């Protein structure tokens, strides 16, 4: 059982804020992903769960027990690092065995447990090698095996895939998700890659500048963003954000006009609309502009339009072609429009 609760967590170094006012309840067996750009505080938060950093304020409890004073050695967490952190002077076998020795697991069980862990990551043939003799992906799996071997209450993973090439990353993503389901261990995963977050997470915690921007399932984050940061961070290509004015139910911006907007707020409002919710059509368009770029990718075409002073991304079908600088019109999917307060970035409902 590993329910983790962070309440009122703050971390400060001198005058510099690392993490501000973080409150999360992580359920047992949940796969939760901390997502955000560099420096947003996600790694620091995870290190506090691990015990490698102490929170300046706030409490960390696991299954109701306060963990603030417990040293990292004694917390039942296993961590997978970005650089794998395999012990270079030991064989893979010894690397995986290390936590068992440190936690005083009975010696008789060591061999069996190490081999099981190695089997789960398909590294049995490499047990005699040293880390330097392994490829990046193999080292990654070794690090995973070392984390698995003692069946901790919680996994912590700090951008474990970012040192791998794209293809390998994809394969490892699937394996990690599968492993977690099999082992049923609460997992906290840190990344800046939103695709990893979307595909792996039960829930995502988006952070920026040390604060949580939104917590929710991938669907919620994607379809129901809480502010412009979240909206712009998730999705590739990202959501188009266009500031304009909302007056009497009509949103207007240079080149854009939307009627019947069901919002009671008037004033400076930012429109958010995803590229896939923009459809090229001559009838009842919401947006008029000129073609700035046309990028066919095989399964579809990215159309970039110049609208007023903005460049708007539109996903068009794979056969779409049009010459540059010609005019074009686009209609929006009315069910998928988002409006944000221009000043604060908050979502308006």
């Amino acid at each position, binding site marked *: 059982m590993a329910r983790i609760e962070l309440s009122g967590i703050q971390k400060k170094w001198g005058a510099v804020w690392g993490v501000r006012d973080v409150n999360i309840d992580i359920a047992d067996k949940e796969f939760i992903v901390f997502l955000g750009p560099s420096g947003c505080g996600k790694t620091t938060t995870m290190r506090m769960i691990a*015990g*490698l950093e102490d929170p300046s304020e706030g409490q960390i409890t696991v299954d109701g027990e306060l963990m603030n004073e417990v040293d990292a050695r004694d917390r039942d967490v296993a961590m997978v690092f970005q650089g794998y952190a395999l012990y*270079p002077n030991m064989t893979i076998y010894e690397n995986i065995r*290390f936590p068992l020795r440190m936690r005083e697991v009975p010696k008789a069980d060591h061999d069996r447990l190490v081999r099981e862990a190695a089997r789960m990551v398909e590294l049995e043939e490499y047990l005699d090698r040293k880390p330097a003799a392994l490829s990046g992906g193999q080292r990654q799996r070794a690090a995973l095996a070392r984390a698995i071997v003692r069946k901790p209450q919680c996994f912590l993973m700090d951008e474990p895939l970012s040192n791998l090439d794209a293809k390998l990353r994809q394969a490892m993503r699937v394996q990690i998700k599968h492993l977690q389901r099999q082992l049923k261990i609460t997992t906290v995963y840190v990344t800046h890659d939103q695709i990893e977050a979307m595909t792996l997470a039960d829930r995502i915690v988006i952070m920026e500048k040390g604060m949580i921007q939104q917590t929710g399932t991938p669907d919620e984050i994607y379809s129901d963003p809480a502010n412009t940061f979240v909206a712009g961070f998730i999705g590739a290509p990202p959501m188009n954000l266009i500031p304009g004015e909302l007056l009497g139910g009509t949103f207007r911006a240079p080149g854009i006009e939307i009627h019947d907007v069901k919002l009671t707020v008037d004033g400076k409002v930012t429109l958010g609309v995803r590229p896939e919710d923009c459809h090229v059509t001559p009838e009842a368009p919401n947006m008029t502009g000129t073609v700035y770029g046309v990028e066919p990718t095989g399964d579809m075409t990215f159309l970039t339009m110049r609208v007023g002073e903005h460049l708007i991304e539109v996903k068009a079908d794979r056969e779409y072609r049009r010459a540059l600088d010609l005019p074009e019109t686009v209609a929006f999917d009315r069910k998928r429009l988002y409006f944000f307060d221009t000043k604060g970035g908050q979502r308006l409902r």
Partner: protein
Amino acid sequence: MASQRRKRGESRVIRYIILGSWAVFCIAPVLWFLSIGFRPRTEIITPQPIYWPTFSLDAWHMIWSDWPMASYLRNSVLAIIGSVIIDLVLAIPAAYALSRYRFRGREDIGFYILSTRMMAPAIVAIPIFFLFRNMGLLDTIWALMLIYAAVNLSIVTWIIRSYMMDIPKELEDAARTDGASDLRILWEIIIPAVLPGIITAAVIAAIFAINEFLFTLLIASTKNAYTMSVALANFTGGSDGLIYNAIALVAFLAFVPVFIVVVAIQKHLSRGLTMGAVKG
């Protein structure tokens, strides 16, 4: 490296003249001194210097039969090994603390240790002499070990510290979450990772110990404690003065192992000599 060769082609002649001259300046005295070691004593100091002497192993036989060469050798070796062991035992934890922990006074303690490198032997020669005399340790290898260890401790500490600072912090974090105590981390992870640094430090300390002269001169008075460095001054005979062929031979005896070991670690040499300041 063909491109490099081409690049520097224009001053090649000058370059080889300069480097070559210095090479000759380095090696010629060595070869000459070597020849001194292998010639009869009568051919060393002559009205006209002899450049093509007759080969003779007189000196070799002499140092073993007329002098306690075996003792000199033994004393050097034991004093060196002992002092290096003392140094490693003290320096490795100290280097670990200085490199991987943050604590108040770290800079000051580090600088204090560094400053003992600058301590001229002459400054403490007299008190050390009295200290050992009062402790009854004069003319013992123990005294040599203790003083060599003290003189080299700062060097060994700082070299090892330099290598320890290269270890990524992730490694320690991983070990801590795996459940390892600080001492375990030091023993099983840090030390194996800095083994080249430890060897470099040991080699440099050993060389400085072989070379040590002033303290050894004061401490040693019989074959119980004379090391090769100071024993050279013992090779005197009768009215003729210094027996140079013996001196030369012993010089080479000490030179060969040092040469072999230094060539083996030459990659690390500049880092060792500057105590980590310059990474070769």
